[in-house]
């Protein structure tokens, strides 16, 4: 089975830099969960087959988010979400943006618009 490749957006790269600087612990746990998601996706093939407490799927257009839950957290970490879009046609896992509760609305809006553009472009 062909592996899922990863592509980031410019906004993702910028939010990654911001979180690395300001909230590295949260980012570390989110990335570990993201790795679990990506590895399982590679083996099971379809995003619908991967279900876990740290994956949230209640967004439009097949967008999902990965949070910071799990692992041995020394301090209580702030809620963090890394938004992804698994494009089944191209087997590309898009890393869209990283955000928290306060930016949730704008983050989802950006993700939906990005995915709409992606679909319109014919991927």
């Amino acid at each position, binding site marked *: 089975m062909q592996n899922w490749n*990863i592509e*980031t957006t410019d906004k993702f790269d910028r939010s990654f830099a911001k979180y690395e600087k300001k909230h590295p612990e949260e980012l570390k746990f989110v990335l570990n969960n993201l*790795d679990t998601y990506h*590895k399982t996706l590679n083996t*099971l093939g379809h995003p619908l087959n991967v279900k876990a407490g740290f994956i949230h799927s209640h967004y439009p257009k097949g967008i999902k988010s990965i949070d910071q839950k*799990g692992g041995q957290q020394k301090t209580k970490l702030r809620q963090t979400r890394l938004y992804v879009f698994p494009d089944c046609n191209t087997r590309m896992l898009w890393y869209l943006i990283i955000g928290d509760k306060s930016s949730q609305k704008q983050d989802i809006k950006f993700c939906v618009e990005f995915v709409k553009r992606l679909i319109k472009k014919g991927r």
Partner: protein
Amino acid sequence: MGKKFKNVSEMVSGLAKDAKFKKETVETIKKQGLAKFLFFLRCDQKLTQKELAERIGCSQGRVSKIESSQDEELGVKDLLDYGNALNLQLQFGYRDKSPKRTDLVKYHAIKIKQYFDELVNLAEKDEEMIKGLAKFHIEGIFNITGMIAESLTKLKKKLPKTMTKEAIHISAPLQDKLSTIEQPLKVKEKVKA
């Protein structure tokens, strides 16, 4: 557009600026290989943590803890519990830390040969079974040859034109090599006798 990567560790190495953060994150990912594998096994059988906990006879909290543990914290009991609950047999083994892919292909080819031999031994006088196994052998020839051919087709696109007419050396299968190692031992035993 942003950047392309093959996996999360590669992405972290590519995007992170702070060396300490990069190292810690990649190590955290590496240290949870077993837990991630157990997570995959549960997902593969479409079970929730709660459903798996019921099968094991423990709390959902324990399943959650197992799936976020580092490899060194997991016990054999955890692995056995997952195996029993998912109706899987636990197998242990060691291999080189960084085996050559070509050696892995040879290893699995020998394993496939062993399984085919076992199937042939199973077929005694049952005509239906022999017919079925013969069909399975032919299916195997098509599928396995097809897989290798597919891989070769991909490789041919990358191959320099000068290379296509060169002769290819085919090494002896690993089993033959093993038998040549075993033979001198037998000779020594005879000398002793």
